[in-house]
């Protein structure tokens, strides 16, 4: 499979703190790649760098052969990059339908796209995430799970090739979490997506991801299949501390 995204030696510092340090990896078309790391490992900073919310101090990001390191987020979105946020960030004063309509209008360029055409397409995505019946409700009145689903619909409506899913499990109960995981898997199949999934809950990625990248203090410590990552000493140490392996930890 050809590579859809290539990251080379990317580095980002905030003052004296290096959040991402010399990180390199690639994502192939059609893959589901997981990104794990303990709190403060630099996962969300990495997504911000890839989506253009932040610019890298050093290194390169290439998407389908095009260098995108310095281009703004809206252009990256037109190229097929989309994301969901760790804490849902809806447009509170817009209805669910209108939030998704904006994505359909402003995402990938399409010929002859009017407001009504975008609204018709948005309904498809709302139906897909199960929010069609709530289409005329303001986003600020939706529940947490519904906001997560709205984020997903909004991201899908931009017609992405590569979707960044940022900690979708955070704040969901087990039933909702299972629904969300199944929905992302369905979205991948139905819309032909490549998924880069940042997650805290290891069990989810063990099932969903084909390949996992583990980072700690902004540096890559391991990369491999879920089974390899689960048995990797450095990953265990990063998550559980060195005491766990020595058997001194209770």
């Amino acid at each position, binding site marked *: 499979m050809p590579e859809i995204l290539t990251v080379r030696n990317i580095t980002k510092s905030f003052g004296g703190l290096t959040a991402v340090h010399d990180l390199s990896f690639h994502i192939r078309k059609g893959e589901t790649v997981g990104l794990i790391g303990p709190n403060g490992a630099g996962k969300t900073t990495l997504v911000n760098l890839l*989506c*253009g*919310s932040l610019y890298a101090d050093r290194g390169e990001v290439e998407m389908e052969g095009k260098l995108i390191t310095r281009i*703004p*987020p*809206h252009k990256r*979105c*037109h190229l097929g990059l*989309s*994301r969901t*946020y760790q804490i849902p*960030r*809806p*447009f*509170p*004063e*817009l*209805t669910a*339908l*209108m*939030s998704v*309509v*904006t*994505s359909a*209008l*402003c*995402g*990938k360029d399409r*010929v*002859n*796209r*009017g*407001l*009504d*055409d*975008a*609204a018709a397409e948005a*309904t498809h995505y709302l139906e897909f995430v199960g929010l069609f019946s709530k*289409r*005329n409700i303001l986003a600020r009145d939706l529940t947490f799970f519904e906001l997560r689903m709205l984020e997903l619909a*909004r*991201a899908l*409506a*931009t017609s992405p090739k590569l979707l960044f899913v940022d900690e979708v499990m955070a704040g969901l109960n087990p039933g909702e979490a299972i629904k969300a995981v199944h929905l992302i898997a369905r979205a991948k199949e139905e819309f032909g997506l490549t998924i880069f999934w940042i997650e805290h809950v290891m069990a989810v990625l063990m099932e969903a991801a084909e390949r996992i990248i583990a980072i700690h203090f902004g540096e890559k410590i391991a990369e491999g299949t879920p089974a390899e990552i689960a048995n990797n000493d450095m990953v265990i140490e990063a998550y559980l501390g060195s005491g766990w392996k020595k058997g001194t930890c209770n």
Partner: protein
Amino acid sequence: MVDVEIRRDRIILRYKGKKWDWILEPRYWRNTLLWTAGLLVFPILCYFISPILLNTVVNANLYAAIAIPLALMTLGTGRINFGPNFFIGVGGYTAALLSIAYGWGPLKTFPFAVLMSLLSALVFSPLVIVARGLYYVLLTLLLPLVFMEITFIYTDTFKGDVGLAGIQLLLNTGMVKVNFLLTAYISMILMLLYLWVINKVIKSRYGLIMATINDGEEVAHGIGVNINKVKILAFVFAAGMIGVAGWFYAHYFGTFAGITYLPLNFMIKILLVIFIGGRAQIFGCVVGGYFIAFLEMILVVTLGEIQPVLFPVILAVLLFTLPEGLFGLYRRRRYREYLPTLHVRR
């Protein structure tokens, strides 16, 4: 070429792979037509009751004509501009200086007044990108005040203290009362034109995009909205429209003094038009404009010297008691969805 398709309920324009729908909804026109007819009859009534009222009508129309683009600017940039009167100053001084220097009439000075307002807005448009929150408020607040200082410093040119006089009048039919009546109608047409254009913009895809910027700039950027372009366009476009009000003031009175329009009290009046009418409700701006202009007039006539104290007090009370503004009272009773909604027949 532009491809035009006319359907029963809409006109569709296609150009280079882009498509714009102009939806015609005659079933929603009744209230608009009634309100417009009511407004158009009002100056005639004033003419017969007391022609002095016509000046208040002109003021009310101009307050609304400043507040409506300001509402668009607020929506499109996601920030509240506290210095819209800067553009009134730019438009007014351009018209006044050109008219005095070259003896030009209002039609000749109009394009220059608009152009100067647009250019000055373009020069200061980076503010909408680099400044936000309190910094944006302070910076925009400073613009008219600095401009006023400049009119005092270069008083030979701007006549900062006494104002420029000898500007050609907007109309001169030879009859003062008729002049006032026609001016009231011109100001009303200007206001209604602004209302119609900006209502169209807000209800279109561009209005929706502006709403996303207002709600969450970074998120909007992430879903493909070129936020800087939209913010600058909204700022410049609205500033040009506000500049026209300055041009109108200059040619209406035949004099133009920065000290009348650039200080804080005029700006507060405009912001109150927006808040009293209904926050960023463009129809509310008309209600607010008329309310403030007539309240001011009544207080000046009845209270005389104490008016500057009581006016803000009354407005502050109204702000607390009517959080949704006067137009909000109407909206609460007659709610209508202004954004498209999908209804499913079950």
